[in-house]
């Protein structure tokens, strides 16, 4: 199914609350929303809120669509984000009723696993937000394992939502404050030690994705990674988000991705 045509609108904040640690959950009423595919993202412009226009910080911020539910003349779109800089700092401040410029959904969506093929979703830090919808949709016709990792318990996002999905969920934190102590890549190694077909989906910090790609390749399992590059436009016109390809040249993360087969990526060329 083709991904829906993106829109550009002023979304209205419905809720903006702490999700523990530096993480927040933002719920936006987006009129005219036409649906989205798992792994797609939106561009949000907290720096130029519609009521007080300002130009610093200038660029919109890419944020995965965590999930969405029909509401009013569109949908309530949910974003899970981590406050990590100026743009997300401003986003943490927006109040219910205020507006945030939104463009999306953008990017390709994940190809769902084939029926019967086991899906292993590995996500670290804010990458967790990119895989929830994939888990939700894939579990309809496949067995889904979700492996979430973070530095510490507070950095994990949406754990309860994954729990209520009823997927097999395992957690890892570097300090052991939630789930197993260690890296989520260790969980992947354990999962892949079990026989059978499995497709691996990964979103998280670059070193983590690269390691997951290696682990999957060693087991001969297909691995899809969702890259995070700095973006200016999000829809393929600034050419700013180029990711180097193993075959030479570049792909645009926003248009050709954000997900790529792991072997397509020239890891050593990523910033």
């Amino acid at each position, binding site marked *: 199914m083709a991904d829906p045509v993106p829109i550009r609108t002023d979304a209205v904040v419905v809720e903006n609350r702490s999700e523990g640690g530096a993480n927040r959950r933002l719920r936006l009423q987006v009129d005219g929303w036409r649906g989205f595919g798992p792994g797609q993202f939106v561009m949000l412009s907290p720096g130029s809120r519609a009521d007080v226009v300002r130009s610093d910080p*200038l660029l*919109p911020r890419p944020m995965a669509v965590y999930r969405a539910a029909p509401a009013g003349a569109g949908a309530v779109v949910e974003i899970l984000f981590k406050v990590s800089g100026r743009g997300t700092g401003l986003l943490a401040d927006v109040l219910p009723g205020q507006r945030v410029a939104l*463009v999306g959904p953008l990017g390709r969506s994940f190809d769902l696993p084939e029926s019967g093929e086991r899906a292993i979703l590995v996500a670290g830090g804010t990458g967790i937000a990119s895989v929830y919808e994939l888990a939700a949709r894939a579990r309809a016709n496949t067995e889904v394992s979700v492996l979430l990792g973070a530095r510490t318990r507070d950095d994990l996002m949406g754990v309860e939502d994954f729990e209520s999905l009823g997927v097999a969920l395992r957690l890892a934190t570097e300090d052991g404050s939630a789930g197993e102590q260690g890296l989520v890549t260790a969980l992947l190694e354990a999962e892949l030690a079990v026989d059978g077909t499995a497709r691996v989906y990964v979103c998280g910090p670059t070193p983590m994705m690269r390691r997951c790609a290696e682990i999957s390749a060693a087991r001969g399992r297909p691995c899809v990674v969702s890259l995070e590059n700095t973006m200016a*436009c999000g829809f393929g016109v600034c050419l700013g988000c180029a990711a180097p390809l193993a075959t030479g040249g570049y792909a645009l993360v926003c248009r050709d991705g954000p997900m790529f087969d792991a072997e397509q990526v020239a890891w050593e060329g990523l*910033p």
Partner: protein
Amino acid sequence: MSASQAPDTRVDLAGIPLRNPVLTASGTFGYGSEFAPFLDLRRIGGFVAKSLTLKPRFGNPPPRISEAPSGMLNAISLENVGVDAFIDEKLPVIPDGVTVIASLFETEIAGYAAVAERLSEEPRIAGLEVNASCPHVKSGGIEFGQNPKVLAELVRSVRRATSRPLLVKLSPNVTDIGEMARVCEAEGADGISLINAVQGLEVDPETRRPVLSNVLGGLSGPAIRPIALRMVWQASRAVTLPICGIGGIATAADAIKFLLCGATAVQVGTANYLDPAVAGEIVDGIEDYLKRHGIERVSDLVGALEIPPDRRS
């Protein structure tokens, strides 16, 4: 003018008739069709496509962009699909009635002329814009538009290669923009576009490295608007060529400032990234302004800046 009558927004830019003075800038509008979901391309005056070279090019390794105060830095370099793919694949999907200006650049003058010739065969293209902000390989990294002699040679040879409306897009990284404008006029350009991005540098103090893989990049966005307005004003006093004003335009008010400073039309750049429908809103806003001020023709605004008598040097 009666309040109900729609003002006349048409302008003629260097022999290119435009339904209104709002174009979008090269490198910020892709090949046009990317904006179709957000904007009726017939609503705006037209667009300038991403600069083309003879052969497709890959561009720089990442990071290619970086945020800056009220702006951004980019070092995309020459990445584009090449002139043939543009004509064969990109142009045909542009709806009729949309004005397309093709932008071109190369690293040597002969290359420019070749691209210009190829583009001139294409009736669907309304005009050419020569991007003179590319480093001139023979001058060791100095941009074509930074040296009046090199610029003259460039304009002369592209002028010979095409009889189509020819705009030259100037580099802002110069001492005297008026001098560069005069060179374009003398060599037969039909108009000038300014400004391209301002050369800048950003550093990551933690890694102690430049943020961009290319070290230097081009600063664009609202940060450069006062510089762009100044240069448009200076160029408009140096030549009679029509000027297309570019730099940090994000609202109708911004566009009007450029018209007042002497621009016949404007191009919206970086703002397209933040809001892909912004160019249409700028058109609306200009119409509102004209109605509100009882101005019949948008062209009445061009160069209408009122300078205090004691400052008219």
